[in-house]
């Protein structure tokens, strides 16, 4: 579980940091949040939850 969590964090970091499409992404959520921005926030959200899992795996078993 611990290694899965670490792999997921590293994978997400690499993935969301790859250069994206060269064409402008004109879509916006609710009309004003650029899709690109919200997608990245979403990835950070997922990765931070995985970080939380890492935290639980690493510290939760070492009392």
């Amino acid at each position, binding site marked *: 579980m611990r290694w899965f969590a670490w792999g997921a964090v590293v994978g997400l970091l690499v993935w969301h940091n790859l250069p994206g499409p060269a064409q402008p992404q004109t879509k916006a959520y609710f009309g004003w949040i650029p899709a*690109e921005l919200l997608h*990245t926030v979403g990835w*950070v*959200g997922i990765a931070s939850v995985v*970080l939380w899992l890492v935290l639980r795996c690493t510290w939760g078993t070492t009392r």
Partner: protein
Amino acid sequence: MTVQVLVVVTYLLVLVAIGWYSSRRSTGTAEDYFLAGRSFGGIVLFMALFGTNVTAFGMLGFPGFVYREGIGAFGFFGAAAALISPLLFIVLGYPIWNVGRRNGYITQSQMFADRWGSQLVGFLFFALPTFYTFLYLSVGVLGGALAVEEIAKIPYVVAAAMVTGVAVLYTALGGMRGTAWTNVFQASVFLLFLVVACIGIAHSLGGGAHLHQRLVVEAPEALARPGAGILSPASWAFGFLVGPASVIAFPHMFMRLLAARDMTSMRRTIAVYPWALMLLFVPVTLIGLWGRVAEPGLIGKEADRILPLLVEAHLPTWLTAVGLAAVLAAVMSSIDAQLLSLSTMFTVDVVGRGKQVQVWPGRIALLLVAMAAFLVAWWRPASILKMALYIFSGYTLLIPIMVAAFFWRRSTALAAVLAIVAGHVLLACYYSGALLGDAFELSLPTFGVLPVVWCLLVEVVLLLLVSLAFGGQDNAGADRFATPFQGAGR
């Protein structure tokens, strides 16, 4: 102008009042002054780390970066910072706190000298962080004073004296507790301001949807991530090394981590950290993007004025004044921690070496360090702002040694010393022009990546080879650093 003065003076008085109140809670011991008695709960620990981490770059430099580079800047810096910093708090921050608590360390020098039983390692972990932090502090005072001069239209020297003087006052009064409590207030001020400013600017410019449509028509390139220039794959791959990663090696972050009360405080801080950085970076990204259509034509460093320009043009006067206080908050919440860490290192590693550590030398050192930083800022050496990359790269080079201390029992003092010296000398060669003047520029090849990558490579290879060749003998320090994740309870 009157409203601005009133708001800023009130803000500064609140800081001094917090410093004074926190001094009344002090027990008077050195550990209480320098580490707040290792008593920080979740909220104070989080705000102290967050406030210290966020500088004027977050409020002024980053919107300018977005203005110039478009939406890709958010993933490049904001998202990376939101994940890398907490990740390193887990991997290194927790062991630092746990081992530091078990053995009563206050400074990096104490900790790593003890790990390898080497005074030379201790000296390097005193000298290098002191050097980089003093440069960082001077850059902070200089950059902060320039920002205040630009926004408030007050003389540069007055701004530098105000920022430094007030930070010295409340830091000397309250020590670590004083700076942490003021950081809670300061981080609240700049976070709230950014959210309110983002909403207010959008409202004044016709709404977020209208601004997005204008972006699509007038500056569609700002919504693309072409992967060119500073956002090229090579930069993407290594950019995190000089920004988010270096944070864990800052002595001021190190000491704040040591001040955590328990594991729960650490865990809550790390869980909240990415979301707080998102709360900071999303509004400034939107402001940078909207600035492209609201104030087009800003070139180069001019783009860093986009937030003050939009605030002045679209928000009421009183909110503009709060904006100035927010910039001051971002600047001073880092400066106070740097001042305290430098005075702590001087007091513990130099004056108090081998004897009972006292508080009063720390206060004197604080004043001397602040005066020296003020003089550097007053002198305004042309090259100092070019040094930011060098400073962060220098901090990053301390990380492999910290990792080896906790996770590689076979590593030796000789390997650590050789690796540190080789890495930092090579780094100084790469930045010889910025350090000594253009005449001394060595123009070493970088092969398309940041110089710190090659310095790290040299450092890690030396650390591995020398440790493998001459290592294998354990010492008591290795035992004290064993099981860095265990024994902390909840």
